[in-house]
């Protein structure tokens, strides 16, 4: 299905969901920034894309809030990379955000009639 929405809605949706996306991706294992950006792009089949200017400031913000924690990791034969992992506080936030996102989506679906989309 062609993805076609107004640019305003697109921007707002992305802003509203970015935190949730990042937190979800680092839930199971620590990941570095490039990995996170790639996964978002791949899994959304190109519909969502974060460039450096939007991804990293957000990572820093989440880190400052204590929801994720970044750490430099060196692996043999590679450059060192900064890996981010979910903190205990971040876990709570993630659960809460998932909930409200689910409620939000359900509400939107009920209203717009895309019940079984």
């Amino acid at each position, binding site marked *: 299905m062609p993805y076609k929405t107004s640019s305003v809605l697109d921007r707002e949706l992305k802003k509203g969901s970015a935190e949730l996306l990042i937190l979800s991706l680092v839930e199971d294992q620590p990941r570095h920034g490039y990995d996170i950006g790639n996964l978002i792009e791949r899994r959304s089949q190109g519909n969502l894309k974060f460039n450096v200017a939007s991804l*990293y400031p957000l990572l820093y*913000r989440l880190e400052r809030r204590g929801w994720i924690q970044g750490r430099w990791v060196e692996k043999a034969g590679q450059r060192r990379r900064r890996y981010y992992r979910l903190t205990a506080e971040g876990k*709570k936030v993630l659960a809460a955000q998932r909930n409200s996102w689910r409620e939000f989506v359900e509400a939107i679906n009920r209203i717009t009639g895309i019940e079984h989309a």
Partner: protein
Amino acid sequence: MPDWKDEVRKRLSGLNLAPAHEAEIVEELAQHVEDVYERSIKTGAPAPEAKRIALLELDDDKLRKEIQRSQKPFREQPVPGSGRSNVLADLLHDLRYAARTQVKNPAFTIVAVIALALGIGANTAIFSVVNTVLLRPLPYKDPDRLVLVWEDNTKQGYPRDTPTAANFIDWRDQNQVFEGMAAFTPDNFNLTGIGDPERLQGRRISASVFQLLGVDPQIGRVFTDAEDQPGAQRVVLLSYGLWQRRFGGDPTIVGKALSLNGRSYTVVGVMPASFQFPSSADQVWVPIAFTPEEAADRTTHYLKVLARLKPGVTLSQAQTDMSTIATRLQQQYPQSNTDVGAVVTPLQEYFVGDIKPALLILLGAVALVLLIACANVANLLLARAAVRQKEIAVRVALGARRWRLIRQFLTESVMLSMMGGVVGLVIAYGGLILLRSFIPENISQARQISIDFKVLGFTLFVSVATGVIFGLAPAIQAVRFNQSETLKEGGRDAATGGSGKRLRSLLVMVEVAISLVLLIGAGLLINSFLRLRNVDPGFRVDHLLTMKIVLPMPKYEEAERRSAFYQELVQRVEVLAGVRSAAVTYSEGSSIVIRIEGRPEPAPGEQQPIVVTTIISPEYFDTMGIPLLKGRQLTEQDTRTGPNVVVISETMARRYWPNEDAVGKRIALGPIKTPRDWFQVVGVVKDIRQYGLTIDPEPRMYFSHKQTDFFPPQDLLVRTDVDPASVASTVRNAVWAIDKDQPVSNIETMEEVLTDSIARQRFSMLLLAIFAAVALVLAAVGIYGVMSYSVAQRTHEIGIRMALGAQTGAVLKLAVGYGMKLVLTGIVVGLVAAFALTRVMSTLLFGITATDPTTFTLISLLLVLVAALASYIPARRATKVDPIIALRCE
């Protein structure tokens, strides 16, 4: 390959990041850009294109802005979903807003607070009475397990009779359900030998009473079982009040001797200040110590019996056990015990007495008053909500949620009701001081009525509930409207037309209906009370002084000595200035079984002729003003040497000699051993009502104390020409001139005695009348408010009508008609409700039925009148409107 780090660093310059931190960011971001570059190269992009794509990632302006933002310190934000601080912040905001709203409309606030304060105050006051009298546990250990046991003499007309000593002893020894049983009976004592002689109210009690109640003395000890035996050393326990008043709280009082009724008693202890049993007027207790004769007596019913249930035993189990014993005693003593059962009742019930229905009705009444106050304030709020439509519309347009607005409204109304609650507490406090002086003395714990934490909790609850009740309707009403309509200039308000008006009309109808119920209730009580006041007691109440003069026994053991005292007393008092006549009497009225000459003795269990006995001096009938109907009065010549005579009441004559002349007939009070045991009826006098005006006169007979004084006279009656209270002290001095140790007590005018006897009725009537009056005022204010508002809304329309030539009368009719329609509907509803509800108060009524048509009609008319006035005044104002101004005001 480009120097990515350099590219990134260039873009971050001027952000003043800490160097080490900047280096980390640069390293991380450069890596990412490089990864992107390499990916593009891998997919076959030429180097310059790959570089362009990679640098696009950095999105120059955005990067600087976002990195800078991300470095700001993080302000603690609530975890989404937990939301507690939000509610708190909202509440604080709502409170501030509500406070501002109240301050902005002082008149509105004051009117609402006063209405609520009246309602809440009345509720608080009555609840504190209920709390103390009905809810507070008795001041004894485990009071739930304390019971009283009565004889059931329903056949003789006494479903709760006072047991005989022999029955009590059998019950005590045979039961298996009580930890213990104790008997008590009132007795009075003349305290002499220290200061003025004084008559003390007290009790003879079983030694085990204190143990059953679980109360320890303040000092000393309670009675031992050995002291509860005939012939034991005489001992006495004092009340705290008596100890303080007469002995200055002397800590060495224990072991000292007192002279009571001329005998010496040793003080063994003093009970604590909080102790009362059974009455707060009791000042001394002595052991009951049954003599062998008393212990065998199955005919004198004079005891009350206290018992404590064993743990785990229920009231009905106790009842079953007692009934079994009673049945056994019936078979064992058929002569005395036929048809005599036993009844177990909670002690609480005895103390609460017959005030309970009155209190519950009053509690219901004040709840209704509060409902009216709620309706009034709800009406005020509805009117204000109409004015505030624009404010609300703006807030909704700005994104306020409805629930948030409702919460705001509720905060305002609860704040109002809390203010009402605070003022109400003050009103209740003042009301209680008044109430305490009205509440009948005989209600236990009446003096302890106070505002405690339970009452405060009740007030808080009522205040909040009130706020929610009267706030909810206007709140919902206020947010249920068409927003865009309201925002338009001159748009009609939602609350002025349609549902708002309907709601306000409904509230007025409800107010009218509730007031009618209250007014009818009060009307019925007032009506009863007036009838009660008009009951003929059978004697002249005015200018009559009474006092108690009880001769102590060992000193006045011989009848001659007593007769001489009374004779001298009457002679001395009769010559005092202002005194017309004087008499002595024993009128506490024990009932005695009589024998009528020529009639067979009734079989066991059959109704026996029982007659109230009064012992009098010959001047009694003249002094009391009791008219002689037939025969003659008792005279000075009716003495122990002359023939025995008796004067009887008309009811007694009618009951036992229905178709004969009673004069000349003979009766006896016990077995006939000598001819002198017969008493001849020489006269018939009019009935008197001595036990209270609500009770029908009972058969009564009068003996001269000079002939027989098995009940020695105790009361002095003085008929005066002047204010009876003014001769009290000279009469007392006359007593002391004969015997300086003789106490005189209970000096009262007969009017006071009668007033006391209807104190309970006066109490209920007065309170209900006050509440009904408050209800009437509140309802009138409510009607007036709604009418004023509706007339104000219709100024424009009225102006047009007047301009088109409508007469004043027609406009008045239009406006008043609307109000009266509401009022009449309310009255119809109220009449139906009153018809159903007043039945619950039938026990409080006297001489009229709970659906007395006169009261119903008169009260309805009164309410119509008040309502008509309340709608007339605003309507009248409407007709004064200058049509030009009315038309211009749009």
